[in-house]
């Protein structure tokens, strides 16, 4: 460790470090960052190793909790028969449609409420009630209305994110700087221009953070939807695995879901960073 620090210090001195103390500081910063990353990796590897070890030595029952090697085998066999991509693809697509739909439709409805404040005041108590209603309870309705199709699953995802989006984005619209509105009004802006030039772009950070929340909500909606009706997808795979007591399949679906959700979230964060680069 000490040797590493010395090496780093010498490296920084030859590069951007301004003084010896500065080089020490830079070396310390890098070492701390590297240590944290290493521990993060170690935690992941350790968890799977421990799991495998416990299953191997019958400390836990591999039939109930599965084991990493079996999960890996399941992934490989799903890959071999091609259904891996079908299940991951179906679930991801339903989720993407769900959170983009929820954000877009929610923003449009929030715009309607902004445009007609009295509509907003009239609907306020109903929105509050709908917001506190556990949307999953609507599942049976969607099945009857829409049948056992992917439409039901997307509807489930939409139902979960729509109302919060309306409320959050609408309050974002209302918090737009009144001085900026006064400014464009002094230029004779129409209501539509005020919306286009000030309200919508000014609320973009709010809309994008709603999008980020909706990614998570949409996953919940889609998985619940798949539990209820589907023939494909990771939620279907998990519930099917549970029914036939194939816990390897259940664990595999859960782990794949974790990976897919994390990737999607990171993509949205990246998108958000790109869009709101100049907003601060």
């Amino acid at each position, binding site marked *: 460790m000490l040797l590493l620090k010395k090496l780093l210090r010498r490296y920084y001195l030859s590069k951007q470090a301004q003084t010896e103390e500065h080089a020490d500081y830079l070396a310390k910063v890098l070492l701390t960052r590297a240590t944290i990353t290493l521990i993060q990796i170690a935690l992941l590897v350790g968890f799977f190793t421990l799991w495998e070890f416990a299953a191997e030595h019958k400390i836990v029952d591999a039939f109930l909790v599965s084991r990493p090697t079996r999960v890996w085998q399941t992934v490989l066999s799903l890959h071999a028969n091609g259904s891996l991509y079908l299940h991951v693809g179906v679930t991801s697509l339903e989720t993407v449609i769900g959170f983009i739909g929820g954000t877009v439709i929610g923003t449009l409805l929030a715009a309607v409420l902004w445009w007609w404040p009295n509509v907003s005041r009239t609907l306020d108590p109903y929105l509050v009630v709908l917001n506190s209603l556990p949307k999953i309870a609507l599942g049976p309705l969607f099945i009857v209305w829409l049948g056992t199709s992917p439409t039901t699953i997307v509807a489930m995802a939409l139902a979960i994110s729509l109302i919060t989006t309306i409320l959050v984005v609408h309050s974002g619209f209302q918090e737009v700087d009144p001085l900026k509105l006064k400014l464009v009004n002094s*230029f004779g802006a129409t209501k539509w221009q005020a919306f286009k030039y000030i309200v919508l772009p000014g609320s973009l950070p709010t809309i994008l953070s709603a999008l980020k929340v909706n990614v998570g909500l949409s996953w919940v909606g889609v998985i619940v939807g798949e539990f209820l009706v589907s023939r494909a997808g990771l939620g279907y795979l998990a519930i099917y695995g549970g029914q036939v007591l194939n816990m390897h399949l259940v664990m595999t679906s859960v782990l794949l879901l974790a990976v897919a959700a994390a990737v999607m979230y990171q993509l949205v964060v990246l998108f958000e960073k790109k869009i709101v680069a100049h907003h601060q």
Partner: protein
Amino acid sequence: MTTAIRLNRVSLKYMTEKGEVHAVNSVDLAIEQGEFVGIVGPSGSGKSTLLSLIAGLLLPTSGRVEVFGQEVRGPSSQSAYMLQQDCLLEWRTIEGNALLGLEIMGRVSAEKRLTTVTLLNEYGLEEFRHLYPRQLSGGMRQRVALVRTLATEPAICLLDEPFSALDYTSRLTLQNDVSTILRKSGKTCVLVTHDIPEAIAMCDRVIVLTNRPGRVKWNLPIELSAGEKQPLLRRRAPEFGKYFNRIWEEMELSVATEKTS
């Protein structure tokens, strides 16, 4: 001389659940073309309301507001605002911000664009044209706001405490710059401010309003012996302190009458 702005017995009241609120009451006022007039008064005296009435953002409940002989019935391109904050849109470049007024009025053309860019250059902002507001200092941002105001070529500039958000040094510098620029352009300017020295340093005439409902209490032409127009130099004039004391006393009086009533 033509009269640029004329207010004839202008009153504005609005309703609340508690009752009627008179924001300004029977204000008579005439401002000549090219004049630089300051409006001071205790807070709540309706200073900003007067500007909104001239701009056509508010319409009087009674009386008449005229700009160059025409009754004001809504916002027009003849007057433009500079507000308490620069109000630059963070998501637009400096040039995009400077063009905002023209864009909203649907008057952007290659020629106007060129004029705007020339204005930016004139105020030392050429190298920042493609940057975003957050990359500029407070003083520079307020200069961009000035360009945005001037780009629409208004005959009247309405300044609503435009320097109040700045630190003391930038405030003095910017008062000087803005005053010089606006006087050179020959525009009619109305400055609303809390800052009495600012009003004396920048204006040809200072109007003191009473407490709410605001009425014109006092009309004080500022004549400094040097005949100087630059605010920074005007502050050094020997009469500056006297003007300050007179306006201060008038305003104190307004506040005192409010307390006894």
